[in-house]
């Protein structure tokens, strides 16, 4: 069979496997809802695109471009996490081992998987485009649907970026260090950096270069600004442009509208956007270099290194002559059945920390020492770092049983809701308390009551969030993404209202500790409800 049919069948099978799930339908419904909130009516409490006090009339061109830019913004992040599981699925299901025994080449495999990822994302973009057309009619500012003006932004802005996202997801999946939660966190920071780069890059220079930025700001903004200045001469259009969900300080936004005919998609601009597709192909081919064809011995250097405690033990190596076997079991005395909460907490903690490298502990110690011995103002920054460091330990909470397929063992034990679930959460709290202990002690010594309250709430909140999201999603990914976003938007950016750990000064004035304490309780209830559902109680 030649390359194209192989590529087609590989991508098709993987695509079908993913879209024939109820969860995909829910994703499409959420996608359509996202389009709905991207186009708020005038006088709404938020805006998504604003030039000074104005915005474009919701024509096909405006609706298509605004929704396409916002989709690129969101899908370039969420889309990555959504599709980053295709190689893992082959690994988990064992299909990978079958594929590995076929003549399928590594580049063909990674290209096919990237193509499948792209197809999934393209379906979501397609739903977005259709929903944008429907929203244009629903908003009734311009009821003439011009198909090309509506669809061209999706075609040239969103899809090329989605191709790159699809390929990067494959690259992350085949590199052992980036396959798991660490990769999820790394991608988030790559995305933030890329976005910052796109926003700061002036929309100048050669048209094809100006059009290569992530969200196509270089293509659309100059055209929007020119139209605004033409409609409202003297307005601060070139200085005041915002894109994204902006709630402002007042109750509603009162924006006046101006007509906009859309981007003129010249060959040079289209060429600039196609750079993303070229990048996608290169990244997919690069992934082939790292792809190990599901050979467990080559999956990672660490596994391959002969370590006495990790070597595969053979049946022959440990079996003994049958005559020496003990097969009698003593009966368990009734007094042996005494459940102790502390013993299970210890066991959960050991489970959570087992396999963590010495480097991890070394960095954690540095963060604890830094928090303890630095001045109070700087100590809080150590706390911020200390409470992103154990993210992969927390993200395993609530998902470990499904991930390692031990749920039938653990869930068939008595009182899993009253015993295993709270002890698992408590183990997460202990991890938070230990890693943040430097700053915690510093606050205690400084008798900073408000800071201590915020610190305590943070230590309780993080594992509750991890447990709730883990139990409900069955995957560690959701917590890794949401927690990183929250961590970045709150403590790391010093935004008091989202600061769940008290890293901003003063922590008490925002009321955030109380809000996050309530959230902790709600998340705890959510985790219990989710586990009840898993237990079918």
């Amino acid at each position, binding site marked *: 069979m030649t390359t194209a049919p192989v590529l087609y069948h590989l991508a098709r099978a993987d695509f079908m496997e993913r879209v024939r799930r109820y969860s995909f339908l829910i994703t499409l419904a959420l996608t359509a809802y996202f389009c709905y909130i991207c186009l708020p009516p005038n006088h709404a409490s938020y805006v998504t695109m604003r030039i000074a006090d104005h915005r474009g009339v919701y024509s096909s061109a405006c609706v298509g471009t605004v929704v396409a830019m916002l989709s690129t913004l969101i899908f370039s992040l969420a889309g990555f996490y959504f599709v980053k599981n295709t190689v893992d699925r082959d690994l988990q299901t064992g299909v990978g081992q079958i594929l590995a025994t076929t003549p399928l080449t590594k580049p063909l495999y990674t290209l096919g998987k990237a193509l499948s990822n792209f197809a999934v994302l393209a379906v979501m973009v397609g739903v977005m485009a259709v929903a944008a057309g429907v929203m244009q009619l629903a908003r009734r500012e311009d009821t003439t649907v011009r198909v090309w003006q509506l669809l061209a932004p999706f075609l040239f802005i969103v899809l090329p970026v989605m191709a790159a996202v699809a390929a990067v997801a494959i690259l992350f999946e085949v590199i052992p260090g980036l396959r798991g939660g660490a990769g999820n966190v790394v991608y988030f920071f790559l995305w933030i950096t890329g976005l910052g780069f796109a926003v700061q890059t002036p929309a100048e220079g050669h048209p094809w270069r100006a059009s290569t930025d992530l969200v196509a700001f270089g293509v659309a903004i100059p055209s929007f600004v020119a139209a605004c200045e033409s409609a409202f001469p003297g307005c601060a259009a070139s200085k005041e442009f915002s894109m994204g969900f902006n709630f402002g300080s007042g109750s509603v936004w009162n924006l006046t509208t101006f007509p906009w005919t859309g981007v003129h998609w010249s060959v040079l601009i289209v060429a600039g956007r196609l750079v993303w597709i070229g990048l996608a192909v290169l990244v997919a081919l690069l992934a082939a270099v790292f792809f190990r064809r599901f050979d467990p011995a080559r999956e990672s250097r660490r596994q391959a290194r002969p370590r006495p405690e990790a070597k595969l033990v053979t049946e022959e190596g440990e079996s003994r002559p049958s005559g020496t076997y*003990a*097969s009698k*079991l003593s009966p368990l005395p009734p007094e042996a059945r005494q459940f102790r909460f502390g013993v299970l907490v210890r066991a959960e903690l050991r489970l959570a920390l087992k396999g963590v490298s010495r480097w991890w502990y070394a960095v954690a110690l540095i963060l604890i020492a830094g928090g303890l011995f630095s001045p109070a103002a700087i100590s809080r920054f150590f706390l911020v770092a200390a409470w992103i460091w154990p993210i992969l330990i927390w993200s395993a909470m609530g998902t470990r049983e499904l991930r*390692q397929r031990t749920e*039938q063992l653990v869930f068939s034990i008595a009182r*899993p809701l009253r015993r295993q679930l709270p002890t698992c959460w408590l183990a997460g709290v202990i991890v938070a308390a230990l890693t943040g202990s430097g700053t915690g002690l510093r606050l205690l010594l400084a008798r900073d009551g408000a800071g201590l309250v915020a610190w305590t709430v943070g230590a309780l909140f993080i594992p509750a969030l991890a447990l709730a999201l883990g139990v409900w999603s069955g995957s560690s990914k959701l917590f890794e993404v949401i927690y990183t976003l929250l961590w970045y938007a709150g403590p790391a950016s010093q935004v008091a209202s989202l600061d769940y750990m008290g890293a901003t000064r003063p922590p008490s004035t925002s009321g955030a500790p109380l809000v996050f304490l309530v959230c902790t309780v709600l998340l705890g209830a959510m985790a219990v409800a989710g586990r009840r559902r898993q237990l*079918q109680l």
Partner: protein
Amino acid sequence: MKLAIEQVSKVYRGKVWALRDFSLELGPGILGLIGPNGAGKSTLMRILATITRATRGTVTWNGTDIARSPDALRSVLGYLPQDFGVYPNLSAVEFLEYLAAAKGLDRRAARLRIDELLEVVNLVEVRKRPLGGYSGGMKQRLGIAQALLNDPQLLIVDEPTAGLDPEERVRFRNLLSELAGARIVILSTHIVSDVEACATSIVLISQGRLLGHETPEALLRGVEGRVWEWVVPSAELPAVRRRYPISSAVHRSDGVHVRLVAEASPGAGAASASPTLEDAYLHWISSGRRATA
């Protein structure tokens, strides 16, 4: 000690019936649950182990409905699922200590019990190795050990000998026989010889329905005079297969030596043979299929 299954049915998505009106009452002893692949054995095991809820019907443990009060059973339950995982970074001892803590066993007693169990399942020498390096058979033995941790009154083992080498299989059968006494052991398998070796009663299940619940002796009596050994030319074998359930067929120089189950002699030269449990199983399953058809 009584486990009662009353009119239990389980319907999966797409209206797939895994169990239909299944009723059974069990007391101490080893129950062998046998049936072909997809018969509903694992579904029944999961319902009994409180992992899955029945769509209809009730299961009671000493009179308590396990769907309403699952903990009544869970505290005395040992369960070895057909397919289960382990935590790859833990050693066998750590894994068993974790489950012992979750099962509410006293630490000191748990340690003694773990030592004994590791001895019994022959994992003493690899007790401190990470489970990620264990072979399939070793994981299976660890699964057996965890099921016995709390000295269960109800022990449910689903395909327990899968992946075990012949020596370990024999050891496990002996262990089960020793364990049976004042407890209920349910052994689900499609390997008839496992059941033959230790079961005190046998349940036959096919297409989600209970075909029969008998002692091994009664099952054997049921096919007395119906098992035949017959030598047929190899060209006729397909036709014979279509007409009779065949438990074995061996090619020899004089033809194919066939062992089959039939109400009357299948033809000239056929000799009556003494039945085995495999013959009885074949007879029940094939007559069950005919009845369903």
